[in-house]
């Protein structure tokens, strides 16, 4: 497929090529790769090493810390390119977001400590914000971090934490003052959150696996923090000012998710085209000649173009440091368009394959759950419509 999108630079084309070349040794073993995601709940380590050698982990890290600082357009291009060949790594997204957060908001000490190791692929990171009673509304979180001499003490519980078992560190958003204290002090609900890098294996960190579906290559956990000691220098940004730090990672996350969804759509479409072009059921013509098969695929092709256009516009806005409100608008819209597109692509790829679409060997059925997850997380489709209604259209808030 031609992957030219409006404004695609030669450099993006090179990044796509780099990813395609990096993936080549894995492509011949695609089924085996997929099986290890499903059975072992993790991506083979050699895939992480290949991503590291290609320099993908350094895209958000300044040169002084061993990265390239090539930015979100580069990172999104990589996500898109990998997904378009049927590959990805959940901890790539998480570690990238954490790196971006540290690079944007961290002190020299926290940058020195973590960024070079992220760039070289030495450490993987998870991200912990969600709590049982604080999902879409993060401000209801209750996990507490209290300063105690030369460290913080972390207590609480986070849930739906992806891949923490594979991670070396986890970025945790916690309260540095309780909700009651904030309320009685008349502070806004966004106040007094703080962001920490926590050793995933520190004493007091306990994991309970969750029986979840849809994220391939990583398991999910409820994470209990019981008097976990966190060194002072692991604070990212100012104490109590973590709300802004946290928000600054949400747009890039949405853009990376959107880019991955565009890539997944391309992958599913390619699979459907291959099958539709070969499969003969009646007479001589392959099923791809039938408009009931062909038109839904043509429609996907049109929408990929639109979704990529918006996704890379959002990435370009972020890289150009356009104000957060405008970047946020594009980021949300891109996530909305791309993830719905990917769901349709999974549905149509399955339908094109007929009964074979449900075979694990064919490998499109797994995308049914994978793509559907993105309508719910990291932000639901409805919350994006709320955002657009309220902030772009200027209509009253419903909730």
């Amino acid at each position, binding site marked *: 497929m031609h992957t030219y999108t409006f404004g695609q630079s030669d450099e993006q084309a*090179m990044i796509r090529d*780099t990813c395609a070349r990096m993936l080549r040794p894995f492509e011949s073993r695609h089924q085996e790769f997929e099986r290890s995601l499903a059975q072992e709940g993790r991506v083979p380590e050699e895939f992480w090493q290949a991503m590291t050698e290609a*320099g993908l982990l350094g895209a958000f890290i300044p*040169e002084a810390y061993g990265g390239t600082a090539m930015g979100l357009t*580069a990172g999104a291009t990589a996500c898109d390119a990998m997904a378009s060949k049927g590959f990805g790594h959940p901890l790539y997204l998480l570690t990238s977001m954490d790196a971006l957060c540290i690079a944007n908001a961290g002190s020299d000490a926290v940058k020195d400590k973590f960024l070079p190791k992220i760039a070289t692929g030495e450490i993987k990171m998870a991200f912990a914000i969600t709590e049982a009673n604080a999902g879409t509304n993060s401000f209801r979180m209750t996990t507490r971090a209290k300063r105690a001499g030369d460290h913080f003490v972390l207590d609480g519980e986070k849930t739906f934490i992806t891949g923490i078992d594979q991670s070396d560190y986890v970025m945790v958003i916690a309260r540095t003052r309780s909700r009651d204290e904030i309320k009685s002090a008349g502070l806004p609900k966004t106040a007094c959150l703080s962001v920490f890098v926590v050793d995933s294996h520190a004493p007091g960190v306990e994991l309970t696996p969750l029986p979840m579906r849809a994220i391939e290559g990583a398991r999910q956990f409820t994470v209990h923090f019981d008097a976990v000691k966190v060194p002072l220098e692991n604070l990212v940004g100012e104490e109590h000012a973590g709300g802004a730090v946290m928000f600054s990672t949400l747009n890039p996350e949405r853009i990376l998710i959107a880019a991955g969804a565009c890539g997944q759509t391309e992958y599913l479409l390619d699979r459907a085209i291959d099958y539709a072009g070969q499969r003969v059921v009646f007479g001589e013509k392959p099923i791809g000649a039938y408009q009931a098969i062909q038109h839904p695929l043509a429609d996907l092709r049109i929408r990929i173009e639109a979704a990529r256009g918006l996704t890379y516009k959002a990435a370009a806005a972020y890289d150009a440091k356009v104000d957060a409100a405008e970047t946020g608008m594009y980021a949300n819209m891109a996530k909305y368009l791309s993830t719905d597109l990917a769901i349709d692509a999974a549905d149509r790829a399955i339908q094109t394959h007929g009964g074979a679409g449900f075979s694990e060997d064919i490998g499109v059925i797994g995308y049914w759950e994978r793509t559907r997850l993105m309508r719910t997380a990291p932000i639901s489709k409805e919350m994006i419509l709320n955002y657009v209604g309220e902030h772009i259209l200027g209509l009253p808030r419903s909730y």
Partner: protein
Amino acid sequence: MKILVTVKRVPDPETSIKVKPDGTGIVTDNIKWVVNPFDEIGVEEALRIKEKVAGSEVVLVSIGDKVAQEQLRTGLAMGADRAILVLADDLDPLGVARVLAKLVDDEKPDLIIMGKQAIDDDSNAVGQMLAELLGWPQGTFASQIELSDDQKSASVTREVDGGLETLSFPLPGVITADLRLNEPRYASLPGIMKARKKELKEIPVADLGVDVTPRVTITKMEPPPSREAGKIVASVEELVNLLHTEAKVI
């Protein structure tokens, strides 16, 4: 040592090629362009020499349209030091060899590595012509290159009909790369970033004062005849029977 490596912009070998209806060339719309794979092997070999021999410089050369910048940038992202793009319309092999010979006068490299041929027209001629124009020794179809410790001579193992042949000759010389010489690296993101700042000099071919009048013209191009689909047989017996009765080969 200074190594000059050629980088030609060619259609991606995975692209399906269509010949223009009037037979004057191929349809270039919607084609993905890449570095000639044999040249890419040449770049890799030059980079490996550079990694071994301190103070080496790898200079890339392409001849063609301004868009060949993309392929030079790819070579720079792999790790080459700088690049020269000679802006010219399609040249025939002798024209290319003459342009390169002129650049060699200016650049004075110790070694020239190029792909044994470009996968677009498969001429397999420029390396040999260039060596002749320069009066330099040549080692074509190299599957292994070893330099002496003082880098004054090269030993080149060539893939020839019926086996391997090893030649040794003093440098400077011309070596053309065959498929099995190495497995080229790909550009990493840090490589791509560093390539932004590397020199890419453009020279209009007219400025070189070289006679590039074509000796070869393409009169007509046509696609190879399409082959009929094969037949899938159910058993070995049927296969043997068909080979005997239909194909009449056994």
